[in-house]
């Protein structure tokens, strides 16, 4: 019932967006203020109806109405409220809704702050994008063809042929299938909203560019568009950062960047958007590059839509770790990208001749030329990445059945481009603020070059860098830091409000240094055995069973409980055990591993977690996921996870055993009884039992409060028990007592557990005549396997520098937004004053 209402509201929003598109277009065509007012209301109605629909969807999720497919597919009864909320945008349909909601809010901002002649055409373009996005979730049945997939469809609508639906059309599942365990993360709550705010804001420069072509006013549009574009970039950058940090910190992707298609999907619009910002800044300052500013603004949004198409239409299905369910939106998404491209690029080409172009070429040593080059380099990098990401489509022209490009493809292209960029940032920033000739420029470069050389030499020696291209890369990074640093210094003294650009370019240099240090100089942590083995593998002296040389090095090592191992000649590493808990994830084990620096520094613990993935596990097979522990440091991070453990192996065996037998046979219990052993042992005696040796050292007194009432005898025995093969030993003091109750005597001998050995120990009898005692041992004494973990760990130097570079970029963008927005606000206020006077 509620679902039907939700569906009606979504449909209403869809209709309202079409009406808003029509109304804004007419308003733009007729230059009518009154029609604009009506259109604004249509926009608000669209937003209000969608808000109601979203509210209903959240309500359905919160109240666990599993007859709805979306609720059933992405949530379950045991999901915490905050994840129930984020499950709202955890699926394909909901994430479209979130995107549209963000665009609605951005649209409200545009309605408030945009002036004629741009307002109506800008909003018309915004409404057009909303029509497309809403069509993805409309769920209209048009002559049997579905237009979009509604989040409100029921299970019966989704799977009409499923046997349980055939049997009972009103079937409501008792529980949902649950949110993917990897998405139960605080990052899930903030990462998607930020990315969609970024995507929505990136629509604004596109809309302004179209409006500019529409109204044939090519100069003014960048003023209101620039703060929006800068904000879009800041949000996308933040989203990229959060995504990278999430992948690194909790998803065990092994790093912060893997050139995954979905990561590229947010990077490319950012690169092209940044290219657009460069072009806009030249246009603002020097009334040049109108064509580039328009073209890049259009292209940035096309990149957003294109990457949406790639990641959501199913074409990348085989290549990405981010799997979006294919909802059959291929056709609609294709239409979306085609309409946006044809409208944007087509309109651009149609007006091409009218767009102003500069009267004379700018010289090479001018800020226009330099900034324009920076813009083109960003565009080229963006295009290269799009090219690689599109391999399932483009690769078909090269080979059949194309695989994704190797990671080296991205690295080989981005590295030289980044080096050229770094050098251009310094020259460009100098020319941006001052006029230079070749001679004076060379003079200004002396100091930065000197510092760069010193820093580079130190880094190359300290890092033992031998690869020539890495040396150039490091040099370029330091050059960007020092060269732009001198600009920052210059501006701080004179015009501190304008430091945004200098901060950004320093941040870029810092980012380059961090990237090269942390990605190229990542080292696996290995024990001595693995280190020696890898040395022999490198020398080609290891052979497998069939006598062929082994070429793959080992990148993990095993730790046995309480047995320290020397790792990388730097730490003594000891596995101290694990504990199982049900919070926050049921059945999770957190392992405790101690690191003691051999050079005497302070020791520390790593606590990686392994947990069963409840949504994808079945009765016969448990899927485990890991939550690595990352120890963040100023100079290096230690990245550490447990890839296997005795506990996990035993659990797998237990589950497999259960599913094989299907019923809990009592046989297993008798087997346990067999493992019970009683041992008589005299004071001072040592007795071997299986792999263990026991020594009864002496009696110990028992304290009053541990004994039952009416105790006649109460005594403890100090027993030393050692696992002979490993040499690990414990001292235990089991209790034995005789007490009377209702005039009958009972013995009391509580078992003591030695968890590490899976063993229970009891002091079961006292034999005073021979000064000996009887001990019962419950556990397997032979072939006993000690607790172990298999560990994968790495050190990554200077990941902190990557984050520092990102933060500097964020700070730089924020300063620029502030500056451009306050200037725009001033013109805004002047305009409003004019309105009042006229």
């Amino acid at each position, binding site marked *: 019932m509620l679902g039907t209402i939700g569906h009606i509201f979504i449909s209403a929003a869809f209709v309202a967006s079409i009406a808003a598109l029509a109304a804004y277009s007419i308003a733009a065509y007729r230059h009518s203020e009154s029609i604009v007012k009506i259109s604004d209301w249509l926009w608000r109605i669209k937003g209000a109806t969608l808000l109601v629909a979203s509210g209903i969807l959240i309500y359905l999720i919160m109240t666990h109405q599993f007859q709805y497919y979306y609720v059933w*597919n992405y949530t379950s009864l045991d999901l915490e409220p905050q994840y129930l909320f984020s499950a709202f945008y955890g699926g394909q349909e909901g994430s479209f809704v979130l995107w549209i909601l963000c665009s609605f809010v951005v649209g409200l901002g545009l309605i408030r702050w945009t002036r004629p002649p741009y307002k109506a055409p800008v909003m018309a373009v915004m409404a057009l994008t909303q029509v497309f996005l809403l069509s993805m979730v409309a769920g209209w049945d048009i002559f049997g063809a579905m237009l979009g997939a509604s989040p409100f469809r029921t299970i019966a609508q989704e799977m009409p042929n499923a046997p349980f639906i055939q049997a009972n059309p009103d079937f409501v599942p008792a529980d949902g*299938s649950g949110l993917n365990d990897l998405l139960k993360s605080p990052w899930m709550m903030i990462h998607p909203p930020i990315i969609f705010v970024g995507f929505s804001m990136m629509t604004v420069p596109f809309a302004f560019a179209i409006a500019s072509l529409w109204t044939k006013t090519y100069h003014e549009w960048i003023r209101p568009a620039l703060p929006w574009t800068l904000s879009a970039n800041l949000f996308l950058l933040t989203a990229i950062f959060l995504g990278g940090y999430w992948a690194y910190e909790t*998803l*065990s*992707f*092994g790093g912060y960047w893997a050139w995954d298609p979905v990561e590229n999907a947010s990077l490319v619009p950012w690169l092209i958007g940044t290219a657009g910002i460069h072009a806009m800044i030249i246009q603002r300052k020097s009334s040049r590059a109108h064509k580039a500013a328009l073209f890049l603004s259009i292209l940035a949004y096309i990149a957003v839509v294109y990457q949406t198409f790639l990641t959501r239409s199913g074409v990348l*299905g*085989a*290549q*990405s*770790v981010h*799997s979006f*369910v*294919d909802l059959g939106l291929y056709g609609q998404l294709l239409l979306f990208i085609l309409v946006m491209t044809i409208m944007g690029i087509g309109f651009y080409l149609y007006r091409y001749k009218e767009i102003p172009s500069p009267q004379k*070429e700018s010289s090479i040593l001018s800020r226009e030329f330099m900034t324009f080059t920076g813009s083109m380099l960003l565009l*080229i990098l963006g295009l*290269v990445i799009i*090219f*690689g990401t599109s*391999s399932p489509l*483009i*690769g078909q022209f*090269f*080979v*059949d*059945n*194309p*695989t*994704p*490009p*190797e990671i*080296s*493809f991205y690295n*080989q*292209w981005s590295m030289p481009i980044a080096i050229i960029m770094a050098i251009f940032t310094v020259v460009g920033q100098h020319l941006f603020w001052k006029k230079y000739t070749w001679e004076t420029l060379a003079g200004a470069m002396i100091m930065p070059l000197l510092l760069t050389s010193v820093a580079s030499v130190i880094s190359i020696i300290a890092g033992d860098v031998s690869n020539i291209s890495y040396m150039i890369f490091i040099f370029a990074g330091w050059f960007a830091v020092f060269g732009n640093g001198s600009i920052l210094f210059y501006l701080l003294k004179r015009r501190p409000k304008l430091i945004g650009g200098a901060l950004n370019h320093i941040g870029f240099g810092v980012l380059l240094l961090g990237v090269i240090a942390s990605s190229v100089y990542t080292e696996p942590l290995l024990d001595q055995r*693995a280190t020696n083995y890898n040395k022999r593998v490198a020398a080609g002296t290891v052979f*497998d069973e*069939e006598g*062929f040389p082994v*070429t*793959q*090095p*080992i*990148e*993990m090592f*095993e730790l046995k409980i309480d047995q320290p191992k020397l790792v990388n000649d730097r730490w003594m590493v000891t596995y101290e055990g694990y504990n199982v808990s049900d919070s926050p994830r049921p059945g999770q084990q957190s392992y405790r591993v101690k690191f003691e620096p051999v050079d005497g520094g302070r020791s520390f613990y790593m606590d990686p977690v392994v947990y069963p993935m409840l*949504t*994808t596990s*079945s009765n016969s*097979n*448990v*899927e*485990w*996921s*890991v939550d690595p522990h990352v120890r963040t440091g100023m100079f290096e991070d230690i990245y550490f*996870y447990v*890839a*296997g453990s005795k506990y996990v192996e035993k659990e797998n065996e237990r589950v497999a055993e259960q599913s094989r037998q299907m019923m809990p046979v009592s046989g297993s219990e008798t087997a346990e009884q067999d493992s019970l052993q009683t041992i008589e042992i005299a004071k001072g005696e040592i007795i071997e039992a299986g792999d263990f040796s026991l020594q009864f050292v002496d009696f110990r007194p028992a304290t009053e409060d541990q004994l039952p009432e009416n105790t006649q005898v109460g005594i403890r025995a100090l027993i030393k028990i050692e696992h002979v093969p490993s040499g690990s030993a414990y001292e235990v003091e089991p209790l034995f007592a005789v007490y009377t109750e209702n005039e009958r005597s009972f013995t009391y001998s509580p078992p003591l557990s030695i968890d590490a050995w899976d063993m229970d120990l009891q002091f079961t009898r006292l034999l005073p005549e021979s000064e000996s005692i009887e001990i019962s041992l419950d556990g397997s004494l032979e072939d006993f396997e000690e607790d172990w973990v*298999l560990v994968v760990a790495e050190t990554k130097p200077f990941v902190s520098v990557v984050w520092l570079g990102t933060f500097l970029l964020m700070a730089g963008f924020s300063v620029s937004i502030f500056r451009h927005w306050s200037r725009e606000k001033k013109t805004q206020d002047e305009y409003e004053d004019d309105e009042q006077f006229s």
Partner: protein
Amino acid sequence: MNFKLILGVSSIVLFTSLLMYNFGNSIDSYVNFEQATNRSSAHVVGTWDNTRDWGFSRESMRFSFHMKDEDGNVRRVIYPKPKPNNFEQATQLVVIGEMRNDVFFANDMLMKCPSKYNDADEAEFTRAEESI
């Protein structure tokens, strides 16, 4: 002709052809085990042959199993990492690595798993390393 125009056009041509060349070299076709024999790196698609011995050896720190490619060739595959946890459920495997002496040494492995609640065609790939 304008000198800058010539320079621009020729650098675009150079850039594009370099990109095409490099891209063409860095992608590959999916092949079977027979074809993989002569390659330094190959992507092979197939299914797990669970009738033969398999498992992770804590001694050699390697996971090994037999895989049947799409043309029915069965080869032993060695993967120098722990067994990926959704390995048994995978309906299809992609191994990336090198064929040497009839043994395939995989550096990377992708698994196509039937999504438990969806139809068979709504399957998804996960990278072995990332699904541990």
